[in-house]
């Protein structure tokens, strides 16, 4: 196992790939798409070197289903892709969710709709958090904001996937995937989860196990979905994660996730230096969304300003969480690198003027 306690300059996509290896990922299936290709390229060398599986699938549709197959045997496995190609995986994602099997999907978002371009974007919040597959299911979603967090949350993604036998998304974007930043690659810090009571490995000395989602009786189908949501309730109780900065005494509370949150953080600091009472609330788990926590912080605020690199997607969860406790405004652009802290500070000042 790689043990490097020292800081190294790492590209976001490489950080994910290295963390996946440290986390014990045994199988990777993927199909090329910018801006996440470094993950597959890196693993195409490093996985076989460790006797593990790297397979370039013929399509994203195949990749997600290979993941379904490998995950059904209890093997730690992942795929990575981007936006329009994650769209192709939605069917398989719904199956993995319904099947209660652990799998990690990395989504490095780019700009859409449709082909769009490879610029960073947060336009696939809905795609990931609300899901595009059929039926009632949820995808646990972790949104890192730094290269270090790419490592931290890749580890956590593998752990939570195994712990809850569920599909976990690591939701990054082209900015985080392509940038380099110093980071510490430490050992996988979580316990290993025993899969032997459900995984498929041949019915030796026990009855056969079936992993599937077709249920011909409405009672059984309903029971299965209710069980799934019982699990989701436990995840909601245990796994909500968020960060705040100057959130307590702020008059304006910014909400932002992922790469935009780090830009918003700088804007908040600049605002404080200018004597403006601005704070930040950054959800890290996008599902489960920190509803109660945001409600608590939003109560008594003059304004909640939601900032996203899209046209307002997390905004809906923010509004629902705030539940009318404060006014909610939105500032966003659909794609590109183009947010600067100064630009956000201008918007904050403009909003403050509007409050007077």
């Amino acid at each position, binding site marked *: 196992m790689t043990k490097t306690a020292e800081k190294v300059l790492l590209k976001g996509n490489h950080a994910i790939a290295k963390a996946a290896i440290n986390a014990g990922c*045994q*199988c990777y*299936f993927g199909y090329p798409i910018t801006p996440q290709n470094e993950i597959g390229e890196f693993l195409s060398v490093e996985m076989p070197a460790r006797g593990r*599986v790297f*397979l370039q*699938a*013929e*399509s994203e*549709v*195949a*990749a997600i*289903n*290979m*993941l*379904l*197959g*490998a*995950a*059904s*045997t209890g*093997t730690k*496995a992942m795929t990575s892709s981007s936006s329009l190609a994650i769209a192709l995986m939605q*069917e*398989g994602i719904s*199956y993995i969710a319904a*099947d209660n099997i652990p799998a990690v999907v990395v989504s490095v978002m780019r700009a859409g709709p449709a082909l769009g371009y490879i610029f960073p974007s947060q336009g696939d919040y809905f795609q990931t958090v609300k899901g595009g597959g059929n039926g009632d299911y949820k995808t646990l979603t972790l949104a890192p904001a730094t290269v270090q967090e790419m490592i931290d949350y890749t580890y956590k993604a593998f752990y939570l996937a195994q712990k809850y036998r569920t599909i976990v998304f690591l939701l990054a974007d082209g900015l985080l995937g392509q940038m380099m930043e110093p980071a510490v690659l430490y050992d996988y810090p979580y316990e290993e989860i025993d899969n032997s009571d459900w995984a*498929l*490995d*041949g*019915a*030796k*000395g026990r*009855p*056969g*196990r*079936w*992993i*599937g*989602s*077709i249920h011909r009786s409405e009672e059984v189908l309903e029971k299965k979905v209710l069980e799934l949501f019982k699990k989701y309730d436990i995840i909601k109780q245990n796994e909500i994660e968020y960060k705040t900065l100057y959130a307590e005494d702020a008059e304006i509370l910014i909400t932002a996730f992922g790469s935009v949150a780090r830009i918003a953080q700088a804007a908040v600091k600049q605002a404080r230096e200018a004597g403006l009472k601005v704070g930040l609330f950054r959800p890290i788990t996008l599902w489960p969304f920190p509803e109660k926590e945001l409600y608590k912080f939003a109560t008594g605020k003059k304004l909640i300003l939601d900032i996203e690199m899209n046209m307002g997607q997390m905004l809906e969860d923010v509004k629902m969480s705030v539940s009318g406790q404060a006014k909610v405004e939105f500032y966003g652009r659909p794609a590109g690198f183009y947010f600067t802290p100064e630009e956000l500070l201008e918007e904050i000042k403009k909003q403050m003027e509007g409050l007077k």
Partner: protein
Amino acid sequence: METLVFQKPSSIQKDCNVTFCPGCDHGVAIRIIAELLDELNLVEKTIVVSSIGCSVFLNDYYNLDIIEAPHGRALAVATGVKRSKPDKFVFTYQGDGDFASIGLGESMHGLSRGEKVTAICINNTNYGMTGGQMAPTTIIGQKTTTTINGRDPNLQGYPIKICEMASICDGAAFVARCSLDSSKEIENTKKMIKKAFESQINNQGASLIEILSTCPTNWKLSPQEAHKRIREELYPVFPLGIYKDKTSK
């Protein structure tokens, strides 16, 4: 003293109720596969990939480890299973729509990669479960619920020849088409599946067995007439035989 010469294979569920339509050949295919798992001592290391269509309910019949693949994706799921557990025995059980229409990409790539899995494709020239619509294998002139005047090549194109296509995949070790229309062909089908299974056991590559099979309900024929149709109408379009055999080399 009597000797038992036929019994249900060990991997068939104890109180198995076959829910296919009367006279449908699916049940025969399922049973002979189970017999081979016993004969080749594979039961305890088998992981089955089921598919969408009438084949989706395999867990009603097999007391085996089974993973259900989304429509058409069985070869991709099987790839994931086998790559993660190379010491297991993996086969898919699919219909012709699943294998050769929606799943043609996954099927051909799985075979070309030479995945060490066996694909069993039941070809009954229509979509049975959804009510008998046109399938990739529906033959010219065949009436289905979406080709009510018969398949017209000018409108719906020509049927897909599964084994012919599969045989050009370099990764395929054994490819054969067989039929369940008679006792003799049932015996032969079992032999072909055995060869395919052995090619997987010997790590020789991917294998595919296409089985011509009846759909009496949607063909609107008696089981007996349905078998006759296989011989008279399907044999000329889909000739039986071994299309690829790298196992002896």
